[in-house]
């Protein structure tokens, strides 16, 4: 069994004639937190969305190269992106619970639409997912109320629970705390740490402090290029590249 | 993957249903009017006789009637619509303006037969007793104001149509006014703090959109059927003899004679009229749509 969950090989990507990522090579370790850092517009979100084939849904988007998940190139023509996405959950910058849908259904819908009908199983998974994100005690009496009624931090945790319910092996997070208040952010961060115990996490962050707090590995992007990557200790204590140093010290970004 | 394909092609099929219906509509109207087309050809458009008894049909008076009546209704409606839109946008507090806007938009949804009923039983008698008769007693020596006064007629018809298209033109004008950029409005304010200047500059700015709005209103007026048929008097003539005279339009003749049409050529001629009506309204709508589309594109680029 390889230590790497995802291996990105020679990936370039963009929108129409625009090149946004150039020849990226990166190995994402199993059951660790990999933080993707870089200034605005450096291609972090694009990179993340390539890993679960969301990128290609944007009109005009293109991608080249290979992304290998558990030994399978997910861009192989025979591969069904829907099945890939089942293995890779995603959490977005802004909490986005499904509208007009109860808290319960928000968590259960992924299972329901994937064919799981048994009420007991559903109840059980909903409960466990909400427990992991620490929401169960807060909402257990309000499961039928719309998910959009919750506070921003609660909504984001609901979205994480929703992703957890289908039991993904990888969770991608695109600046999951940037729209939240500091306390909610901290709650999410400790949750991320907990999730990494048996899942692979790739988290995009603008916030150097957050990367320092969370990351096992760090990849630093700048203008579409992967400037530097490696264990967090090395990148933060002894960056090899001047741009990385500047970014870590807060001089750019 | 498979489900997605089915889904895509199913929804596409129904979207194409609209396109297919549109093409079939043109074809079926042509087919329905084939008898009249083969008998009268294009001279149907310039013939001035409508004689069901002898099977002779021509549409010129109806075409003129339609043009005059719809232009008149636009003439009545446009200034009122602009005025109402300006009041809504510039003069009234937001809450009242919103409520009023809902009322006006709702009036666009009131069935045309209700406008017709009101035109026939309320407006026409009122105009006959209190307006037309007074005008006749004052200006009766001018041919334009002489002749019989029934209350119903093409002038009354134009007024009812004007009422019906005002909500449409007002709604578009209001939206255009609300979309005028602040920079333009500020330029107006710098000329002096008067609402009049502001209003005039905004109107000038939205002129192309206003033109399109007028065309939309015109298209609606041309196609409007039941109300006009109820108040125009339904008399086939090349020109009315006075302002108060009865007349006919393309749509009115269909409504008024369709159920009486007893033989194929008669029916076919009425469908032919529908075909002409379609051609005119399509031209008007398409021009209006293109103008709106270009207007929004130009504005979007700035």
């Amino acid at each position, binding site marked *: 069994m390889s230590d790497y969950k995802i291996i990105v090989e020679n990936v370039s990507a963009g929108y129409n004639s625009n090149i946004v990522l150039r020849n990226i090579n990166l190995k994402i370790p199993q059951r660790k937190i990999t933080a993707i850092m870089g200034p605005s517009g450096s291609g972090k979100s694009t990179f993340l969305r390539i890993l679960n084939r969301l990128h290609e849904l944007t009109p005009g988007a293109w991608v080249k190269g290979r992304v290998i998940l558990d030994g399978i190139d997910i861009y192989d023509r025979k591969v069904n992106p829907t099945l890939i996405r089942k293995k890779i959950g995603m959490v977005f910058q802004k909490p986005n619970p499904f509208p007009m849908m109860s808290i319960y259904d928000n968590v259960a*819908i992924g299972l329901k639409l994937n064919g799981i009908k048994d009420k007991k199983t559903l109840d059980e998974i909903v409960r466990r997912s909400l427990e992991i994100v620490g929401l169960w005690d807060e909402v257990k009496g309000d499961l039928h109320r719309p998910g959009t009624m919750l506070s921003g931090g609660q909504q984001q945790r609901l979205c994480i629970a929703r992703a957890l319910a289908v039991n993904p092996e990888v969770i991608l997070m695109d600046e999951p705390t940037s729209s939240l208040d500091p306390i909610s952010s901290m709650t999410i961060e400790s949750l991320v740490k907990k999730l990494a115990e048996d899942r692979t996490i790739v988290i995009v962050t603008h916030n150097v402090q957050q990367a320092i707090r969370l990351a096992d590995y760090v990849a630093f992007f700048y203008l579409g290029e992967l400037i530097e990557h490696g264990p967090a200790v090395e990148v933060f204590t002894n960056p090899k590249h001047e741009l990385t140093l500047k970014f870590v010290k807060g001089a750019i970004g | 993957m498979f489900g997605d394909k089915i889904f895509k092609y199913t929804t596409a099929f129904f979207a194409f249903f609209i396109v297919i219906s549109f093409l079939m509509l043109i074809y079926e109207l042509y087919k329905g009017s084939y008898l009249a087309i083969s008998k009268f050809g294009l001279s149907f458009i310039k013939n001035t006789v409508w004689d069901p008894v002898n099977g002779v049909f021509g549409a010129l008076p109806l075409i003129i009637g339609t043009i005059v009546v719809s232009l008149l209704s636009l003439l009545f409606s446009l200034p009122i619509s602009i005025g109402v839109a300006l009041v809504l946008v510039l003069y009234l507090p937001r809450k009242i303006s919103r409520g009023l806007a809902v009322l006006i938009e709702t009036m666009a949804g009131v069935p045309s*037969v209700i406008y017709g009923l009101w035109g026939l039983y309320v407006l026409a008698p009122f105009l006959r007793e209190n307006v037309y008769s007074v005008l006749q007693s004052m200006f009766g020596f001018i041919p334009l104001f002489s002749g019989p006064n029934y209350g119903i007629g093409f002038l009354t018809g134009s007024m009812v149509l004007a*009422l019906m298209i005002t909500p449409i033109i007002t709604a578009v004008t209001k939206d255009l006014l609300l979309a005028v950029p602040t920079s333009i409005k500020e330029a107006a304010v710098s000329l002096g703090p008067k609402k*009049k200047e502001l209003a005039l500059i905004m109107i000038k700015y939205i002129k192309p959109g206003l033109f399109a709005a007028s065309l939309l209103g015109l298209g609606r007026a041309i196609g409007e059927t039941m109300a006009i048929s109820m108040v125009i008097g339904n008399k086939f003539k090349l020109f009315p003899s006075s302002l108060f005279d009865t007349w006919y339009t393309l749509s009115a003749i269909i409504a008024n004679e369709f159920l009486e049409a007893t033989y194929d050529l008669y029916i076919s001629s*009425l469908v032919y009229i529908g075909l002409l009506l379609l051609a005119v309204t399509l031209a008007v709508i398409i021009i209006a*749509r293109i103008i709106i589309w270009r207007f929004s594109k130009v504005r979007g680029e700035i």
Partner: protein
Amino acid sequence: MQLNKVLKKKILIDKAFTIILICAMIIYLVPIISIIYETVSRGLPALNLDFFTKPIPTAGEEGGGIANAIQGTVISIALASLIGIPVGILSGIFLSEYRELKITSFIRFINEVFHGIPSIIIGLFSFVLISKRIGFSVLAASFSLALIMIPIVTIVTQESLKMVPATIREAAFSLGIPKWKTTIFIVLRGAWQGIVTGILLSIGRIIGESAPILVTMGFYRWWFSGLDRPVSNMALNIFIFAMSPFQNWVRLAWGTALVLLVLVLLLNIIPRLMMLRREVRYE
């Protein structure tokens, strides 16, 4: 001194301008209020139990009601909705969810144009296509009403779906839910209010349509007796009754007008209030 005069003149012009605008408002509002007032005051006396329960009287006969017209109108609208709502929703889905395809802007344009075609012409189309083959019938009438509904439901569905943020779809995809399930069970659900609004508006529109009814099934005053036969219709009855010389029919015309006016106002105002409330919530 001179300056003062100029200023005064300017203020005067401004006032005159305001007055002209207010006049425009009044010129429009007076007839509108008159329409509502006259319909209510002339329609109300016609409304009694007989009006809703008795069939349409023959020309010149006293009494009677519009019961079979109510039945016929309900049947026509139900049939039209049966075609119009699914077709409109599905095509709206295509235009919104596959908007990256070039063909959609063409279809959207045709749809807008179709929306603007006068209803009498839609009626004539249905007449040539259906009534000419099977005779004046509720089928032909409902088909024409459906064609009037479809562009409205399509446009509203498309706009409502577009309001659902892209990240909602992406969140569903990243749960491994295929696009078709995402659209039907998640996106459509989020857009449901807007779509219902559009459906109510389109029903409000066809409930008052009389021109297409006239040319597809004509006037009829009996009960429903088969899809290939005509039914009675409230809106068309107003036209027929109003143009007749019979007092009793004219009375029924006003009564019917009042009922339709109330229905149309409700069908127009309820969805607008729903939309207002939604806006407030999004703000």
